């Protein structure tokens, strides 16, 4: 009777051990696979992001071609007039533009990963320091199709961060405000899209 119970006990223990072994193996295998899958997902998300940026730039170029070309001028009012007319016409061309049109959920995740890689860890202190002084007010109100205020300084962007992000055409640029990443139309100063909580919090 005692022997039978002992055998049953050993059998259950063996099954539990076997189960744990299988789970551990799966987990370990998963650990190896996750980063490469993440990398593939991020690459695909960046590709989609770049395609959406190009689609925006096409709209911008079409709109701008309907305006007198902005050339170097002695008259600042010409620069202001071009900026304002371009902003107005772009708004008209994409009246329903909203957050996420360009920063898709997958793209936001990919930018989070890229930002973390560039701005976390001991070597990132220099990047943080470079981006902090004179940075834009993190409480600034940022809305798609709104104008980036001309009285606010811009945050210098870490070269490491820019190298980790997909390159942008000259018509647009990245801007950082606090932890928010935005794509801005350089000439009209329109906020093209906003992605919040992208940069890791300062430790």
């Amino acid at each position: 009777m005692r022997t039978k119970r002992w055998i049953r006990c050993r059998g259950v223990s063996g099954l539990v051990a076997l189960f744990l072994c299988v789970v551990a193996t799966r987990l370990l295998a998963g650990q190896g696979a996750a980063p490469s899958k993440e990398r593939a997902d991020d690459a695909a998300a960046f590709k989609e992001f770049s395609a959406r940026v190009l689609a925006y730039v096409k709209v911008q170029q079409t709109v701008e071609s309907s305006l007198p070309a902005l050339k170097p001028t002695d008259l600042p009012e010409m620069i202001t007039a071009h900026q304002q007319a371009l902003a107005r016409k772009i708004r008209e061309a994409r009246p329903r533009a909203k957050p996420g049109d360009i920063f898709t959920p997958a793209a936001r995740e990919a930018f989070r990963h890229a930002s973390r890689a560039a701005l976390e860890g001991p070597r990132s202190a220099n990047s943080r320091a470079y981006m902090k002084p004179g940075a834009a007010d993190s409480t600034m109100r940022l809305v798609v199709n709104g104008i980036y205020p001309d009285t606010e300084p811009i945050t210098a962007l870490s070269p490491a961060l820019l190298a980790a992000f997909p390159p942008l055409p000259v018509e647009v640029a990245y801007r950082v405000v606090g932890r928010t990443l935005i794509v801005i139309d350089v000439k009209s100063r329109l906020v093209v899209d906003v992605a919040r909580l992208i940069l890791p919090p300062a430790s």
Partner: protein
Amino acid sequence: MRRRGVLSLVLSAVVTLGLLARGAADFAFPLQANSVRLAAIGDMGTGEQPQIDVAQQMVKSRVAFPFEFVITLGDNIYTGSQPSDFEKAFAVPYKLLLDAGVQFYATLGNHDTTNERFYKPFNMNGANYYTYKKGHVRFFALDSNYMDPKQTAWIETQLREAGNGDWKICYFHHPLYSSGRFHGPAIDLRKVLEPLFVKYGVDVVFSGHDHVFERIHPQKGIYYFIEGASGSLRAGNLAPSAITAKGFDTDRSFMMIEFAGDDMYFQTTSRTGVAVDSGVIHRTIRSASGGVAHE
């Protein structure tokens, strides 16, 4: 391997620089025929009285030292991008210089809007970064707000193609070295730019951003100046350190520079007309036999 790397670095260096810092009393610009004469200002675009005072001092100084152009080290216009801002922070303060035909070659600071590149008096021709040559001096104006791989590749190409015959002067807003307490050095940017500057023999770098004047001891053979007090000032903000050769943080200032052959003469002048620093940097074109910058 490491020794070979250092040796190769030394062998590849083509320029040695020596600085003779002089007292203000015995300093004089040579005003040589065919020399390149300029002024440097930074962080000036407030539109307030101290900026106007500096501008007036520049006009006065130009009588004795007729500089032909001015480089700006960013934060050209603090107040915004309306036409009135261009007037108040630039066209009015520098009217006498502009009327005299003095050209300005601007770079963008973190308070500037990128559309300033279309303002003709800034001579940026619609570009955030650009290069030009005056006599035997090649200037590279960079946008340190946005040093992306594209700009990094551009500056490397430009520095390489410039060869070794001319002076190579880079200028941009964020300083690679600084003893300013408020901002300090842009080490992140230094990691990207300094190797290129060393590799391609940049002689002198001018920056702003910290609202003080500072001359830095040569770093890896390159001279660095910060002139970020031509309008704004953070009085007492300089924490002189081992890298500081000379500092001035009690009033606004601007720099005057003359490239005469292989010598660069410089003088920093306060808004009241006091010379607060001056000296000569000597540049010798070398064969690949090495040499170290020294003071």
